[in-house]
């Protein structure tokens, strides 16, 4: 579904991604790990079309379409989802209004009629349960006054509502206690199917105990320098990143 080829990207003229290659197929879970500043979050921002970043070289294909030519909203309509590392608070915009607009815009894109108010509320209720999100939160402004854990659960709730084909979870485990982590990871696992795929961006092995990856990639200085199976994550947890730097001849 996703083919990233020699992707280079800048922010404010500084090159962060220096040639990323990655292929993701339906049903797969990929973990992207790497030290701070290696470009993990940049990759997710570039894939979802954050206008702050500039792609200088390379291509990204999503189900045969040129992803980089699409607006952020159309990338979402095509089935791409990013769970933000820092979900944004939007005072004055209610969760209900926000989600209804998002869901109905997606339906419009796909040539479907908007959901009726009752069907929509039913859908909200159903999906809320996946991440045990309180009804009170759903009636509040988007992320406003939510705790760290609530914000992350809210991200997974939105993912459940939009049913993406590819989800990118950017540091979804950061700032979560064990209980919240279990709920969030549980939600992700419930949403997993043969047809969708997940890219998990994380610092730690911890999250991968809950969301089992098929592939693990190490991103370092803007490139994927090593790929392997789940055992690679365990090795990183145990030995840190220095041995990879050594392999690259840096130490």
């Amino acid at each position, binding site marked *: 579904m996703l083919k990233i080829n020699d992707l280079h990207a800048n922010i404010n003229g500084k090159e962060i991604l220096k040639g990323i290659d990655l292929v993701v197929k339906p049903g797969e879970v990929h973990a992207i790990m790497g030290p701070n500043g290696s470009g993990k979050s940049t990759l997710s921002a570039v894939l979802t079309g954050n206008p702050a970043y500039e792609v200088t070289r390379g291509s990204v294909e999503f189900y045969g379409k040129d992803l980089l030519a699409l607006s952020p909203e159309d990338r979402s309509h095509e089935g791409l989802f990013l769970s933000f590392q820092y979900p944004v608070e939007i005072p004055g915009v209610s969760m209900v209004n926000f989600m209804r607009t998002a869901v109905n*815009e997606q339906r419009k894109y796909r040539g479907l009629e908007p959901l009726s108010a009752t069907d929509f509320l039913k859908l909200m209720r159903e999906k809320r349960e996946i991440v045990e999100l309180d009804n009170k939160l759903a009636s509040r402004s988007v992320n406003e006054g939510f705790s760290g854990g609530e914000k992350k659960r809210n991200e997974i709730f939105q993912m459940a509502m939009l049913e993406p084909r590819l989800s990118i979870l950017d540091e979804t485990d950061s700032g979560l206690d064990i209980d919240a982590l279990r709920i969030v990871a549980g939600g992700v696992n419930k949403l997993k199917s043969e047809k969708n795929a997940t890219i998990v961006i994380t610092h730690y092995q911890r999250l991968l105990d809950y969301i089992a990856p098929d592939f693990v990639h190490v991103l370092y200085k803007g490139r994927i320098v090593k790929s392997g199976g789940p055992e690679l994550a365990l090795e990183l947890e145990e030995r840190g990143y220095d041995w990879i730097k050594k392999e690259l001849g840096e130490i």
Partner: protein
Amino acid sequence: MSAVQQYIDLYRSQKSLIEAHSSEVMNGLRGEAVALLESRGLPSLKDEEHRRTDVESIYAPDYGLNLGRIEIEVNPYEVFRCDVPNLSTLLYFIVNDSFYQSAQPAAAKLPDGVLVGSLREMSAKYPQLVSRYYGQVADMKRDGTVALNTAFAQDGFFLYVPDGVVVEKPIQLVNILQGSNVDFMVNRRLLIVVGKGAQAKLLVCDHSDDATVKFLSSQVCEIFVDDDAVFDYYDMEESSENTSKVASVFVRQGARSNVLVNGIVLHNGVTRSNYYTTFVGEQAELLLCGMAIADKEQSVDTYTYIDHAVSHCHSNELFKYVLNDSARGSFAGRILVRHGAQKTEAYQSNKNLCASPLAKMYTKPQLEIYADDVKCSHGATVGQLDQNALFYMRSRGIPEAEARMLLMFAFTNDVIEQVRLDALKDRLRQLVEKRFRGELAKCSGCRACR
């Protein structure tokens, strides 16, 4: 000839015509008004309080005035469609500056003793009552536009709620500007008296019926709210880009009274609004708020002056502007806490969104405090739309235009939240949303734009 001289000359030559079509009470103040106008003139850009709106140039053109009160043929029901759903009001009309006699609810619908109607007629019928209030808070020395209004106003709206009476149903006054192929000036006068312990709500809507001629709409509104009374005043402008509005609202509040003033500019040309409020009794509360949505070349300028003359009163001020294209906004909020006005609480907030690089906002809080045991605060911000929020929404599939609309709508929502009339609140939300979607590029209440 200066802008003001043409009005002085007009007054001198037409004095008897003006007086013949008004009442003794209203005529009583004209001499003083013209003398003041002659000695002080209209505000100029050099006046600190008028630096952002060129009042003189607004008054400079040669406007037609209907001093002979020639009846203008109009069916206000046809011109104005009340599209406030579920908002059942006692509906009155002023066409230009004449109270429209043939379209008003039966007096039987009003509680006993309540008077609503033409200021000219009421002041002729109840001269003693009206003269106790007319011109008593509208300080002509403060602003030449108030003096000019007093010199020329021949009619308007009068609302009197006797002590202890509660008017449950909101009262709605619709001002219709009706053109007749010439640029036109109207001088409207509102007088509202809410007695001790009485309660009422008034919604004033401004509409322009003709987008092809220029209007200058001058309105002076005096509001007396006696001890323990509760009064809501909503002013909503939905006029044309050719309309200039210069309006002053004067409020005098008695002890323990509670007043809400909410001024909403949805669509306009150039608007200058002055709000002067005074507390004369202790423990009174005032909520003064407003919002403006302006784009293209529209301009909205608000000046507020809250006089904490006595102790233990509470004022809260909230104004929000959303400016797009080359729109200009200005807010100057002065709060005076006089010597001895201890335990005053006065809060002011003015927040503004400039959604385009050419939009300009000027904001100026002015707090003058001469008491030492008070709580006062002010805050003013000018900002752009939050880019992170925009991207977050787009990443969820919400198109950029829609996302911008939702953010702008959210920004104004807390002013709408201050409305104490649920049906009006709902209606306002719809109107604001329509406005942001560009569907209200013209005034929606008018025949001309339908």
